[in-house]
């Protein structure tokens, strides 16, 4: 085995927390996100009863969220009743998160009652009169956020591989700057629309990323300094999806079914928090699998 490879895997393996700790972190994140995910489905069902007279219509979004729920329920059952830990449970959690991404993004390719609306041109500078084009300001800040997240990820990765704490802190600083920018954009959009903007795919992507980075940062500040390494790739993936699939950045008028601000805010806000927590669990699962893969070459090298 080449010496450089052993050294890289060895460093990575030593830098990441022990497998048992990562496994517990995965469980904690799922245990936090799963009840919220259940509440998302329940609030959606109650709302649907008032709007469509059916609390369950087997709509693709509902069905996909049920499948996601079943995957996580399976993981929790396995973990609590059969002590499922390790690679299998990390893989199940990742599968659950893929199902979640399908619920969020994949459903748009199917005919659904939950299809996102088509964005219209942004009402420029109506409230923030000092700017000639608020949409441009938003675009600049959002691009800055994307770059910050990317730099945050790179620095966290470098700090993990190189074992340098300073780089990790700088990486967190970039992620925090990106998060601040993300929050500013969401505030601007909320001020313009006179409500929290959830209804277009672009808006929800922004919120989804916000939730992921929020939980990544909370975990980082809670002495889990590798949380950002797990969650930032997901944040980047989702923001790229928002950019590429929903290029229009204007506000989408609420269709009649969504003209219920109470349920809209409860349902979607819960979804953002739940998705963020489950993204954190997926991030930890990724790190678990990386660490698991990393320990094998080290063991092989030791044998040689």
């Amino acid at each position, binding site marked *: 085995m080449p010496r450089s490879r052993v050294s890289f895997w060895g460093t990575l393996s030593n830098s990441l927390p022990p497998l048992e700790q990562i496994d*517990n972190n995965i*469980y*904690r994140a799922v*245990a*936090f996100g*799963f*009840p919220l995910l*259940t*509440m998302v489905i*329940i609030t959606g*069902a*109650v709302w649907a*009863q*008032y*709007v*469509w*007279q*059916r*609390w*369950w219509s*087997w*709509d*693709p979004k509902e*069905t*996909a969220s*049920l*499948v996601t729920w*079943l*995957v996580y*329920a*399976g993981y*929790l*059952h*396995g*973990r*609590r*009743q*059969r*002590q499922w830990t390790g690679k299998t449970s990390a893989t199940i959690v990742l599968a659950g998160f893929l199902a979640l991404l399908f619920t969020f993004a994949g*459903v748009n390719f*199917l*005919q659904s009652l939950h299809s996102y609306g088509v964005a*219209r041109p942004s*009402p420029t500078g109506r409230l923030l009169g000092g700017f000639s084009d608020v949409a441009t300001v938003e675009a600049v800040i959002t691009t800055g956020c994307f770059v910050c997240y990317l730099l945050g990820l790179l620095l966290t990765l470098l700090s993990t591989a190189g074992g340098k704490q300073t780089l990790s802190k700088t990486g967190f600083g970039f992620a925090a700057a990106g998060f601040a920018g993300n929050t500013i954009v969401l505030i601007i959009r909320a001020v313009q629309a006179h409500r929290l903007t959830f209804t277009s795919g672009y808006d929800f992507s922004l919120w989804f990323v916000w939730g992921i980075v929020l939980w990544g940062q909370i975990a980082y500040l809670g002495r889990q300094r590798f949380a950002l390494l797990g969650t930032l790739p997901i944040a980047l993936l989702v923001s790229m999806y928002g950019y590429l699939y929903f290029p229009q950045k204007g506000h989408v*008028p*609420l*269709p*009649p*079914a969504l*003209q*219920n601000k109470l349920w809209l805010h409860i349902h979607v806000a819960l979804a953002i928090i739940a998705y963020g927590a489950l993204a954190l669990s997926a991030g930890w699962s990724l790190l678990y699998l990386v660490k698991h893969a990393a320990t094998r070459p080290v063991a092989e090298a030791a044998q040689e």
Partner: protein
Amino acid sequence: MSTPVPSPADRPQPEITFGDVIRAGRKKLKEMRTVFLLLSLIAVAALICAIVPQNGDLQSYSTRYGRFIGRVIVRLGLDHVHMTMWFQLLIAVLLLSLMACSGRLWKEATLRWRIPTAAEASSKLRAGGELSGLVPLAPEQAISAVTPALRKHGYRLHHLEAEGELRLLYVHKRRLSAWGQALVHYAVFLIALGSVMGAIPRLSVDQRVTIMEGDSFRSEDGTIPFAITVDRFTIARDPDSGSVENYYSEVRILSASQEVQRGTISVNRTMRYKGYLISQSDWGLGEAKIEITRSGKSQQHAFPLERGPGIGDDRSMWSVPQKSSALFLPGSHGALVATRFCPDAVRRNGRLYQRSSEYPGTPALSLAYVSGVSGPKPTGGAQRPPTPWVRELGWLLPGEALSLNDGWIRFIGITKYTGLGIRKDVGLPLVWGGFIACIIGLTMIFYFPLRRCVIGFEPRGQGRTALTLSLCGHAGDPADDTNRIWNDMLERSGGKPVAGAATEPDQEESTSA
């Protein structure tokens, strides 16, 4: 003398009773493998539901997926998955499995709920305490010293009967959460039961009715014991964006021809009457109305409208059907037909332009006179009608009129209809109850989990006490704050930890599960 050994075939077979079969079935239903298999099958069925558009016909599936796959979809019932026998059977087996599991979970919850006996607690400690320490105090003093630490962390203390010299303390917090798991399982059972009850046609009502403005609906078969009259239907638009904000139906509920309730229904605002939920479901354009005045006599006629290929083959546009009903004009051997309809038009310099293909707007109707078509067969040996010919009469906006030979035709306007959903779901209270129980149960399990442990105090001579703590948590739960509490306990009692003790929860309940 040797006795012959019976061959396996000759051996008496134990008789399998009906009870054995039931017991074996119950055991199988309780197995985790069965539950996973059922959940996976339901997930696969749900995915099919998501991918294959539901409630289509053979033609639509053949067009979309090809003739063979279209037939397979219809034959296997994949066009209405959740209504198929096999899917209902899956749900029924899941219900049985949930019932079987819930019984077991109830027993487990009862075990967690009750305070253990001294014998149970000491056997637990003997099986291996997770944390051990040595305290420079006598057992009684040590208990007094650690009590504030445990109380500070919200634990309730139970002094168990001493086992010889061993003093036992059982501590717990959030005892109610012992029922969390059982509650979630009962909740899912309730939700599934409610959905099955809601799908039974004799118990529930699920109708969608379309009512024109000014018209009434009365159930012909008497399934809905009241009538609904729609006085007005309006569509509200956002003045800035022009997009539809909401649909409003002003309705009256009549029972035995007496008005019993009145109100406005809109999306997100339903009306309830005697357990029936009346809601805004959809809307549409019903008829285009005209008035014909001939020889001083006026009569009204309505041409039905439908969604279909309109101007520019826009299939979502409102239009007159291709085979529009004709208004036969007596004494003229001809009929009046509606040829085209535009939901939103404007007249400029005498010409009509389509403004948009959406309603609300200013509708326009195009009429034609068809000569030589036979109306209701004339009696008394009438003459054969002449060769047919068609004359376009032109477009009319509401209120506009055009002249006929002996009179004129005026386009009055259009009549809208509102689509109302009338639903009575007897399973709904169960579903709602299930939802609430599910949220409470999950909150108990994951946010306020039951914490309990047994602490043993054993004298070790010279005024010292060996402290042992054994967690009675769930195998899946990380140790969480146990180490913090343990350190606090040791700090208050001036003790020191004994190295080599594990900090993970035990396997007690997992193995029993």
